[in-house]
């Protein structure tokens, strides 16, 4: 819930101060993005000029067309969409289930398992890249969607997040549901999950992002340009002294749009007021 007691007729100035401060920060946060958008409207030769451009230029269409001509960008966006959505949907299930187990149950080996989970987080992914690639080769899964989706479904970050948010659920709520005759899956699906909807929304965004922006692993696993995801497709634009930055930045900007839309949609989910099965009942 929001701390609704802050507002009040006595201190109207507070709102202005707060909004201004946040706005200033937001400008800093968004400035590079503004520059990115401007950069997509200039020809590659003009982008890095002194002083930097502030106003849009003429080359938006050229960059747009060029991007789709030199890469299979539309196809890559579709690939990324498919992979990221599937990954997010499945990942939500896996992470929430595992988080629930850690948060609300006591079982043998619990701490050990959770510790092992954290340890898997600790090993840098570059070290496991080659062996994981070998697995994909052996399974014949090179250039496939499942190769991208499956390995990281049980994302330690996601499991940790769900565990933390579920830990705040009072046990009596769960016990009450059991007493009412619900089996364990119903308790999970109808009582526990709706309560952590804010965390679920946050997790959904992070899962989607992690998959969307993943670069090195898709780079080595995907073999044909038709199956490239967006980051891999954009990397193919780079060369020695021959990178078309206008197209590259255009592609980057376009690839950010679906996620920003997703965020705008989902952020209403983790704001007070849209809670079902409120905790305090």
């Amino acid at each position, binding site marked *: 819930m929001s701390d609704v007691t*802050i507002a009040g007729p006595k201190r109207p100035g507070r709102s202005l101060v707060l909004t201004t401060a946040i706005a200033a920060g937001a400008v800093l946060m968004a400035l590079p993005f503004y520059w990115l958008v401007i950069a997509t409207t200039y020809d590659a030769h003009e982008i890095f000029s002194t002083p930097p451009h502030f106003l849009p230029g003429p080359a938006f269409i050229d960059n747009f067309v060029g991007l789709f001509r030199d890469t299979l960008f539309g196809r890559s966006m579709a690939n990324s969409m498919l992979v990221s959505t599937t990954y997010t949907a499945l990942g939500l299930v*896996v992470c929430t289930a595992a988080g629930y187990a850690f*948060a609300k149950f006591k079982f043998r080996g619990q701490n050990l398992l959770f510790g092992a989970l954290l340890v898997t987080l600790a090993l840098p992914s570059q070290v496991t890249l080659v062996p994981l690639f070998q697995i994909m080769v052996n399974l014949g899964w090179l250039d496939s969607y499942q190769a991208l989706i499956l390995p990281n479904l049980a994302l330690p970050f996601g499991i940790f997040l769900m565990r933390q*948010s579920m830990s705040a659920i*009072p046990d009596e709520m769960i016990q009450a549901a059991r*007493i009412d005759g619900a089996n364990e899956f119903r308790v999970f699906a109808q009582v526990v999950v709706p309560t952590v909807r804010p965390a679920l929304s*946050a997790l959904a965004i*992070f899962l989607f992002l992690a998959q969307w922006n993943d670069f090195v692993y898709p780079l080595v696993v995907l073999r044909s340009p038709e199956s490239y995801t967006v980051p891999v497709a954009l990397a193919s634009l780079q060369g020695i002294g021959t990178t078309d930055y206008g197209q590259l930045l255009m592609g980057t900007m376009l690839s950010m749009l679906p*996620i920003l839309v997703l965020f705008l949609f989902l952020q209403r989910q983790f704001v007070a007021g849209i809670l079902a099965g409120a905790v305090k009942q």
Partner: protein
Amino acid sequence: MTNTLETTTPKMGKKTNSPRRRRSSVGYPRITPYLFLAPMIVLFVGFKLYPYISAFWLSLTKNVGGEIEFAGLDNYTRLLQDPLFYTALGNTGVILLVQVPIMLVLAIVLAVAFNSVILKFRGFWRTAYFVPIVMGLVAYGILFRALFSTNDGFVNYLVGFIGISPIPWLADPMWAKVSIVIAMTWHYTGQNAIIYLAQMQSIGGELYEAAHVDGASAFQRFWHVTLPGIRPAMVLTVILSTIGTLQLFDEPYVLTNGGPDNATLTVGMYLYQNGFKYFDFGYASAIGYALTIIIGVISLIQLRLFKEKS
């Protein structure tokens, strides 16, 4: 484990209204947690077990003239005597100690602001702070390099208005670290703010009411209601930010290449160089596992500290 509210005592014996179910004394079938964990375990065994074992095995080998030979702990001994490794550790440590606290404090402040009813256009600001997380690495690197360019970067352009001469953001050992900290903070603060914000939603409104009735000021309400309420999220973000920073690779890679003169060489960068530039995968794996041990120890300490505080 981390229940903050009291638990009901489990009912012993059979339940009277569901004679068909067999329940253990704790109120649920014993297999239940394992079922919920099953997908995670299957995936782990399928896709993580072999890579971790393989990487560990690799750390015990050397590539001698194209043949992979068993080398025992040679890579680790070499690591312990490697001055560049210590440089990398030092740099990573400095960045960790400076960046993570700043970022998390900012994130809490932001989350409180986003949660506050007196902030106008909340949805818009939240999206603005979210934008940095979304940007892909290559573009982000290009942009920040351009922004931090000594002679024609926008940052120095702005700084010039206050009458300060151009700062060598990426070219000076100290300023390069500062640039990395700034870039990381820009990139990840919004993400942590969202995590805190999500957790704040589950703080009961009546707690704030009660505090208000007791005459608590806004700050006191924050300190005594909000902060404890987001404690689980704080544990999460502290541990994860620490791990992420200890593994830091992205920012040094695109901004400074570990320079100048190794001033921003992180352990993550050093690992990458040894593996993918020098093709010394045995040594790179050893660096990886050494880092894992360090992260494990630090995370353990953090978890202990958090437990004690409750």
